[in-house]
């Protein structure tokens, strides 16, 4: 079983760190992982994206032209990656800032209001964790327990007090999916 995921949005939305958290969660489940960022100048305010592959087997190419799951957080990323979702694949997009919604009928579309949710929670820093929660509801490639375990392992101990907030954001994200 191999899941090929692209996460794309603006620099600063936590796209790369969301990918990293997903990758660490896979590590907790002893899966094979690649995390390949677009590392160009686009990180500074422009679009940012990261390809995360989670697999039971050795992973070949870290660079892909089609994906099982696309998580898009702005219009440019939607325009770029909607055509690259494999037929039968999943596209999750945040409604905030999307003017032209996706139109494909051969993939599963999930519109979420993660930005709205973070406003309600009064914590816009948790945006990427809300999105990750939504993704894990649709595509449970790793368990929430593994995400929390991964966070515990990667966050310096002085930030461990943030883990409950992250868990709340994940669970809020899961509720965004009908």
């Amino acid at each position, binding site marked *: 079983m191999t899941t090929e995921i692209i996460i794309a949005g603006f620099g600063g939305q936590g796209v790369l760190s969301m990918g*990293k958290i997903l*990758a*660490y969660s896979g*590590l907790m489940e002893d899966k*094979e*992982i*690649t*995390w*390949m*960022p677009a*590392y*160009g*100048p686009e990180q500074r305010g422009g679009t940012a994206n990261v390809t995360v592959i989670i697999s039971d087997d050795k*992973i*070949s*190419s*870290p*660079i*892909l*032209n*089609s994906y099982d799951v696309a998580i898009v957080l702005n219009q440019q990323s939607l325009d770029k990656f909607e055509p690259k979702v494999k037929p039968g694949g999943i596209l999750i997009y945040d409604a905030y800032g999307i003017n032209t919604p996706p139109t494909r009928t051969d993939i599963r579309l999930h519109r979420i209001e993660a930005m709205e949710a973070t406003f309600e929670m009064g914590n816009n820093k948790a945006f990427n964790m809300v999105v990750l929660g939504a993704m894990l509801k649709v595509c449970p490639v790793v368990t929430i327990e593994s995400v929390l375990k991964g966070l515990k392992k990667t966050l310096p101990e002085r930030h461990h007090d943030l883990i409950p907030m992250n868990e709340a954001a994940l669970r809020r994200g899961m509720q965004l999916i009908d």
Partner: protein
Amino acid sequence: MSEEVKLLKGNEAIALAAIRYGCDGYFGYPITPQSEVLETLMEQQPWDTTGMVVLQAESEVAAINMVYAGAACGKVVFTSSSSPGVSLMQEGISYIAAAELPALIVNVQRGGPGLGTIQPSQADYFQATKGGGHGDYHLIVLAPSSVQEMVDFVGLAWDLAFKYRTPAMILADGVIGQMMEKVTLPPQRRRRTMEELIKQCPWAVTGKKGRDKNICTSLELESDKMEIINNRLQSTYRDIARHEKRYEAYNVEGADYLIVAFGSIARICRKSIDIARERGLRIGLIRPITLWPFPSEAVAQAARGTKGVLTVEINAGQMIEDVRQAINDRAMPIEHYGRLGGMVPDPEEVLDALNRLLINPTK
């Protein structure tokens, strides 16, 4: 500390592997996409644990000359940079090769020529494998295609460099440097003691106590003596070529076509091959691991019986020259597919190229 599994970027892996190997010193200067090597070393502060020196030099030219000096003292030393920085180091690398000293140079390539781009490239293949600096010399060139190999090749490069008293290079690219994968780090080795160093490197400049003086230099003004040094170097290169060729073969038995690719691009081609297999097309892959010495026999043997060979490189066609020479058969179609300027092909694109250039050529 025992073996442990971590999720690391290729650049971070190089730094941690060097500390674990018992490295004595790193000298470097930041440049994208390899700056995490220096950053990780500074973060780890190995001077407090193993006693390893980590120094940000004032330039790449200074860094490679610090490596030269450290190597002359028999120390386990290295530097890392990316393409424009490695160009600056070429003079020093030639001196290190001429002085017959072991050292490691890591090049995490980006697109050139000139300052170019910060995106991945393999356009320094010629520079790495055909000399780079002036004079008749070679580097042992290792091309990692995973973050695990970034770890493994640090140790391998130093083992070979000390065995043959010649500098070795890890030729990676921005994909491998920036990508995170699961890796197993080797256990921590302690740095050699001075006694161990003197025993392993009787040629090193260690302080003349009760022995004749050792001189590490690249200068010899008398031609007849310089020719002896040249001949000794060439004899070392022949030894290396005889014993150290390394490659990985994938799916080559009974293949209709052969792809030759190295580093990150070999990974992409592997996926192309898996996609092609589902479509009933059998393609083999030879991934040279040592770019110098080039695994010519393996390439020639894998090409035999196929209908054509495609090299895939993110350059304008460099390794293809070694592939042509290895196969040495004018009747065999040998084509190149590459992207330039920091662009990286995807697996479908490689299959399209194979189809266009070899299976259904337009002319």
